[in-house]
């Protein structure tokens, strides 16, 4: 079976007046339909660069990104993105935010509102259709952003640290929501995160990346039963996965920290 998403020898060098900075060493990866993959790594490992390449926001890179076996470059309708920063449109109500990609695609009003209403329900925001983002909490706004991307019906959902700006409890509950959505829609998902527990809780596979230049250090298969929820986190096996990933990540994270502190003092 062809993988839904194939990342083939993708590498990236950023060019500055002082020469090139190698952000990514060649990375290859296949993602199956319905699979949930997390990419975890220290700050500066190029994980967001990888996401932006796959999402099409960076168009200059080495290697290939294939969706259903066909090479894509630039933004692609099969790939939807959710960002870390606040990204709802403040001038649109919740339902109009979710309906945005459908409106842009010319879907008739009645139909797009119907679809948006279903998605708001899916992310647990029914009853908040007519609220503006400024009237909602950070967690609710991020759920609107997720619903908006889902409205586009992407084959692959890319999420770049979507819970990073939220508090721990909201983050856990939102993680449950994402799990539920992923199970209901059988949504292929690629999550960028620096939170180990989050990666273990949500993923089928966790990819650990090294510090710059980023490459894949190890792939951890998470063999925990589905359907999952945040209750999983008390279990012994869960703790073992977290500990094992931290073991690998530790050296890389301290390299990143040293470099950052070096940059600050030097």
């Amino acid at each position, binding site marked *: 079976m062809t993988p839904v998403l194939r990342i083939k020898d993708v590498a990236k060098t950023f060019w500055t007046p002082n020469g090139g900075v190698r952000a990514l060493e060649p990375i290859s990866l296949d993602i199956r339909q319905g699979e949930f993959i997390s990419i975890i790594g220290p700050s500066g490992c190029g994980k967001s660069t990888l996401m932006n390449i796959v999402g099409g926001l960076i168009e200059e890179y080495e290697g290939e990104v294939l969706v259903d076996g066909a090479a894509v470059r630039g933004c692609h309708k099969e790939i939807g*993105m959710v960002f870390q920063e606040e*990204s709802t449109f403040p001038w649109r109500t919740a339902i109009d935010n979710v309906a945005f990609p459908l409106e842009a695609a010319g879907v008739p009003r009645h139909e797009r509102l119907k679809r948006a209403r279903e998605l708001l329900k899916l992310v647990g925001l029914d009853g908040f259709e007519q609220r503006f983002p400024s009237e909602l909490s950070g967690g609710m706004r991020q759920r609107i952003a997720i619903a908006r991307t889902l409205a*586009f019906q992407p084959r692959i959902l890319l999420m770049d640290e979507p819970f990073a700006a939220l508090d721990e409890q909201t983050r856990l509950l939102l993680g449950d929501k994402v799990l539920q959505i992923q199970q209901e829609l059988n949504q292929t998902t690629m999550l960028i995160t620096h939170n180990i527990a989050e990666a273990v809780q949500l993923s089928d596979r966790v990819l650990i990346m090294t510090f710059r230049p980023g490459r894949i250090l190890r792939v951890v298969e998470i063999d925990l039963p589905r359907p999952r929820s945040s209750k999983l986190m008390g279990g012994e096996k869960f703790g073992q996965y977290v500990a094992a990933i931290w073991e690998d990540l530790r050296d890389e994270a301290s390299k990143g920290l040293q470099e950052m502190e070096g940059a600050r003092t030097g």
Partner: protein
Amino acid sequence: MSTITHTGALRRPPPIVTRFLVLAALFAVWEAASRAGYVSAFILPPPSAIFQSFEMLFVHEGLVAAFLRTFAEAFAAAGIGSLIGVAVGYTLHRVKIAGRAFTGWVAASASAPLVLLYPLFLVIFGRNSATIVAMGVVGCMPPIILKTKEGLDNVRPVLLNIGRSFGLTPWKQFWMIQFPAALPTIFNGVRIGLLFAIINVVGVEYLIVFGGLGQLISDLGDRFEIPGMYAGILFVILVSVCFFFITEKIETWLLSSK
């Protein structure tokens, strides 16, 4: 605790009351100085005389008609100025080299007394409303251009990335994301532009003795109807201040509802 808050509230009246008290005190001092003969009542009539001549302005001098005319011209100027200003602001945002070359000059022109260009417009359009509106347009454009550029420059990159990830065409990217995101800042520019247009319109009306409030004030001065002239000036100030507050309220309301 509640007593303290209570007496605190009594001691500190709301700002609007303070503003009026300051104004009332100023008028009282002025009135007293005028009556005591420290100030010539001919050069600076007492406030009571100025207030009394308001009636004359309303009944005999056509103050309302003059007001309507001035504001129609100012609104026309701001309307035309907004269309041109937003287009120019967009160009300065879009064409980076043009932005770097001209933004500084536009900002400088905002602080220059552009009203002094009136002879040029008088030659082009003649002594009529067109000159006045054209001067209003020139006056209101700098803030509209600058605020449009600022609003478009400062749209958060993540919102643009959302549009790109949905595969929006450049046109949709502009109308569905950039423009609405920049709209509060643009509105702010239009509001300041409207105030600049009022200043220029009244100024040119005064200078070329044609049209609304400016002409009225000029006429009254020429006839040595000094209290009436001051009443006219006071009226323009009052209307401008009211206008400033009303548009400010509209702006806050628009921002809070969206």
